[in-house]
């Protein structure tokens, strides 16, 4: 007597109702904060069992029938990960928790600088890879339904409509419990508890069938072993390449599958649950696989040929009339399928809504910046729609593929697809140098190869037969199953080897040649060194930041060089060997003080607390704060520049003032000199004119002498005034030059006669007239004035009797120099430097001049493009006048 179809439906509905109730209660209990058992390691371990889907529940037996013990690899992979890489999982979990990631796409995008491009790629890869897998689950449920309904011909039951019902029901369950919480980041206690229950059901079901088979049908363990040995399954036929490939795939998928990531990382309550899971999950998997071979062997023996081995778990009890056991088995398969679909659709919907739907919605509505409560409901709606979309995709895939045997292989193909995420995931956790470009490039290459070598050929019909046989465009080295001419490998091994190898290679190479941006660098540090400072309990709650993070932030605030100098100083103070100090409270305090100087104490404290305290503020927020303070810094450095400019101006003003003061002093000194020079002759004039006026008994000689003095002093006064006016005109540049052509000899002749005429002393003058025939174009009168001055000086100051003057003319390079050298003792060194200053007079000398002569000479010569200098070392007073020769006349 077969179970009636109605009963089956009723049991299903009842079972689902129980699941609903469990999930609902668990959510309620969790919401009240009670129910610690909800967060026990047991529940966590059981929730991991969604790894065992209907594919493994039913399919493992079929796999064993077809390929012997190879099905073990599917369990071996996760077991190796759990036992051999639990520390890696712990890191993954720590990173996932500390970064508050919502999915594997979120994790990878977060690691590689919050790149949404990467998130979209991962999401698409996951959807492409998982959709057939969901279809597989729908198929298993409808197949098991069909198996029962065959016994009840009264019902018109089609696979397609049952698939639709199943998909719809699962969508409702997933929506109700996967998107119940308003806070989309909260964990889903209800769903996790429900799938834990399902995990128990499927284990119990499989164990029950197994025990029935071994002890009820085969008659004991030894009997069973004998039967197994007799069956083809017993043949030990291991292909090491394929075994290691599939073991690797299973291990990779265990880590990378979105649903596994969901329960393992997102839903975890306590990192320590991993310790329990590390042994409990392998135990669970062991129990799940314990009876696979006996069921397969006995099923092959007892059931008629042609029976679908994928359903032995169901058909074997049925064939023995054990409907209760079959029903339990059915529920086990149903549990496997539903738990997988629910969690997978939840995980995929999170990825779809977060990385594809929401960005599009936000850019459409243009409200990317403002996050209101409104957006939250949109997020939930997006997730619900995404769940429906994912299940609809699975359903349509199932319909299109026709539910054929092709689906059976889809499990491994799916694994191979998600395994492409492994290189960026592991690289991201252990290698700071991994970059977004590397991850994207590796993923693209890996996913492309996976599509080309595995998914498309596997689907049949997508690639023309010609391409499979001869390669595209006849390029045999591009044949999907024999890339680069490597043949003889089984297609799965071939695809895994090429896609994973090239994925990893491209990922590493591109990472090495590309540079990470600041967010990537910071995130890389957060990921790779997540344990570095978070193991010890130092009073910081959560996750203590790495010094590098602090450095990144400090650089944004203090400027790169200042921040690096500060960190180096601190490292030296701590005696650390590198340039990064340990984030000791002492150091943090000093850093905070430094930052406070730029951004204020409160902001500095908050920023350090956010990095060090591992608070949930995102890195982007932090960097935004840092950027703002960088702007403030820029502003303050502008202020600094302004103040520097002010002090520069002040200094210039001070210098100008000093110069004015100096000029004023010079002017005072000059006026004092002028006053002195004017008053001195006036004093004599006044004194003697009063004497002449008031004294009656002057001798005629006295009268004549005093009148002569008055006359001389009056002339001196006039000369002085002339000189002063002359100098003023020359200095102010208002002098008008009377440029004429002439010959040097004539000018000298004129000057000599003017200077020597009527002089009290006779002076011998030495000349060489043949050198003086130099054509000039100059103000000849001014030039003569200079010569007269120099000759007169020689006449006045030469202290040798009789005075002699040598006039020496030399022309060279368009210039002529005229030297006036007397036979006196010359000027002292001090006098040489002062001789051309105004009012300078050789000390003690009273020659009637005001000391302006040489100053005037220098002014004149500079106006005439020449110069007059003292010529030391000539054995007497010596002055040299240089001036340009008229260049249009050759020297004769």
């Amino acid at each position, binding site marked *: 007597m077969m179970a009636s179809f109605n009963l089956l439906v009723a049991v299903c509905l009842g079972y689902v109702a129980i699941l609903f109730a469990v999930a609902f209660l668990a959510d309620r209990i969790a919401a009240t904060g009670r129910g610690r058992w909800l967060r026990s390691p047991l529940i966590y371990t059981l929730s991991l069992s969604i790894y065992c889907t209907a594919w493994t529940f039913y399919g493992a037996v079929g796999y064993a029938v077809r390929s012997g013990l190879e099905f073990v690899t599917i369990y071996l992979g996760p077991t190796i990960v759990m036992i051999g890489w639990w520390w890696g999982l712990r890191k993954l979990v720590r990173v996932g928790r500390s970064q508050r990631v919502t999915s594997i796409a979120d994790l990878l995008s977060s690691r590689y600088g919050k790149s949404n491009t990467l998130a979209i790629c991962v999401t698409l890869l996951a959807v492409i890879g998982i959709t057939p897998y969901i279809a597989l689950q729908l198929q298993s449920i409808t197949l098991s339904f069909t198996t029962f309904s065959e016994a009840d011909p009264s019902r018109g039951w089609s696979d397609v409509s049952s698939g639709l019902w199943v998909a719809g029901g699962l969508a409702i369950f997933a929506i109700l419990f996967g998107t119940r919480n308003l806070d989309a980041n909260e964990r889903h206690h209800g769903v996790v508890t429900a799938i834990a229950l399902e995990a128990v059901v499927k284990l119990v079901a499989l164990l029950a069938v197994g025990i029935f088979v071994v002890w009820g049908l085969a008659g004991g363990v030894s009997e069973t072993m004998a039967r197994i040995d007799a069956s083809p399954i017993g043949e030990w036929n291991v292909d090491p390449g394929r075994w290691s490939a599939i073991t690797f795939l299973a291990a990779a998928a265990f880590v990378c599958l979105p649903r596994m990531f969901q329960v393992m990382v997102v839903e975890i309550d306590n990192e320590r649950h991993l310790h329990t899971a590390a042994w409990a999950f392998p135990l669970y998997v062991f129990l799940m696989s314990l009876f696979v071979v006996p069921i397969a062997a006995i099923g092959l023996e007892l059931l008629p040929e042609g029976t679908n081995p994928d359903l032995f778990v169901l058909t074997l009890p049925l064939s023995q009339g054990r409907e209760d056991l079959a029903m339990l088995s059915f529920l086990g398969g149903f549990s496997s399928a539903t738990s997988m679909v629910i969690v997978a659709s939840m995980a995929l919907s999170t990825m779809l809504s977060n990385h594809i739907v929401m960005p599009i919605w936000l850019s459409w509505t243009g409200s990317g910046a403002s996050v209101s409560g409104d957006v939250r409901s949109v997020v939930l709606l997006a997730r619900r729609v995404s769940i429906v979309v994912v299940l609809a995709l699975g359903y349509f895939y199932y319909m299109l593929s026709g539910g054929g045997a092709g689906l059976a292989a889809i499990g491994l193909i799916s694994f191979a697809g998600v395994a492409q995420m492994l290189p960026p995931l592991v690289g991201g956790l252990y290698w700071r140098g991994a970059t977004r470009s590397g991850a994207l490039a590796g993923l693209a290459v890996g996913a492309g190869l996976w599509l080309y070598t595995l998914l498309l050929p596997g689907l049949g019909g997508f690639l023309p037969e010609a391409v499979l046989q001869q390669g595209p465009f006849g390029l045999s080295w591009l044949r999907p199953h024999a890339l680069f001419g490597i043949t003889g490998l089984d297609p799965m091994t071939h695809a895994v080897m090429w896609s994973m190898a090239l994925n990893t290679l491209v990922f590493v190479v591109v990472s090495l040649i590309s540079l990470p941006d600041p967010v990537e660098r910071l995130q890389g540090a957060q990921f790779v060194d997540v344990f570095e400072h978070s193991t010890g309990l130092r009073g910081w709650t959560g996750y203590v930041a790495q010094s590098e993070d602090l450095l990144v932030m400090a650089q944004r605030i203090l400027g790169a060089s200042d921040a690096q100098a500060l960190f180096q100083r601190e490292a030296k103070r701590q005696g650390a060997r590198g340039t990064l100090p340990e984030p000791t409270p002492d150091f943090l305090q000093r850093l905070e003080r430094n930052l406070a100087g730029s951004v204020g104490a409160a902001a500095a404290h908050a920023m350090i607390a956010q990095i060090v305290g591992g608070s949930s503020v995102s890195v982007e927020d932090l960097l935004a704060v840092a950027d703002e303070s960088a702007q403030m810094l820029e502003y303050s450095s502008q202020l600094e520049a302004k103040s520097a400019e002010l002090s520069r101006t002040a200094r210039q003003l001070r210098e100008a003032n000093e110069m004015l003061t100096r000029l004023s002093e010079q002017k*005072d000194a000059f*006026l*004092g000199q002028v*006053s*002195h*020079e*004017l*008053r*001195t002759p*006036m*004093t*004599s*004039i*006044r*004194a*003697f004119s*009063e*004497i002449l006026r*008031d*004294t009656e008994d002057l001798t005629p000689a006295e009268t004549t002498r005093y009148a002569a*003095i008055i006359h*001389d*002093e009056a002339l001196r006064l006039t000369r002085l005034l002339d000189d002063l006016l002359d100098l003023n005109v020359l200095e102010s540049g208002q002098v008008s030059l009377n440029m004429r052509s002439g010959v040097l000899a004539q000018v000298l002749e004129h000057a000599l006669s003017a200077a020597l005429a009527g002089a009290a002393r006779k002076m011998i003058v030495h000349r060489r007239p043949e050198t003086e025939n130099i054509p000039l174009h100059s103000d000849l009168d001014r030039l003569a004035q200079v010569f007269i001055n120099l000759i007169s000086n020689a006449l006045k100051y030469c202290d040798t009797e009789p005075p002699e003057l040598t006039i020496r003319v030399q022309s060279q390079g368009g210039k002529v120099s005229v030297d006036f050298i007397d036979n006196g003792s010359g000027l002292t060194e001090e006098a040489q430097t002062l001789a051309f200053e105004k009012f300078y007079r050789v*000390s*003690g000398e*009273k020659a009637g001049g005001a000391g302006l002569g040489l100053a005037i000479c220098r002014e004149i010569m500079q106006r005439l493009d020449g110069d007059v200098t003292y010529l030391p070392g000539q054995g007497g007073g010596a002055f040299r006048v240089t001036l340009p020769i008229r260049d249009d006349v050759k020297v004769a």
Partner: protein
Amino acid sequence: MTGRHVLLIEDEPNIIEAIRFLLTREGWKVDSHTHGGDAIEVVQRIKPDLLILDVMLPGKSGMDILQELRALPEYANLPVLMLTARGQMRDRDMAERAGVSRFMTKPFSNIEVLDAVRDLLTQTSRS
């Protein structure tokens, strides 16, 4: 009042001649010196009753000579008539701080000079 001895330190020969003419006619003995550098020694050698001092002198300025003289106890009260051609207020202040007895700006009137010399010599003889 006769027989009084005046030392004139002045670098302008015509001014020396004028002052010498005026004071000699009054019966005073006048010595002159034209250089500032050795003026103190000349004062110490001649031991005048009155010193007439020009400000702008070659070698050493009249201001410095006055300061150095006043630093010597025996010349603390020597009457000093200072003549300057610079005619700036600053010079008068400096001279008074240095302890000048009388300060006159060139050109002077002969009567003023004679009165000043007479005053200064009278004060000295009374003290």
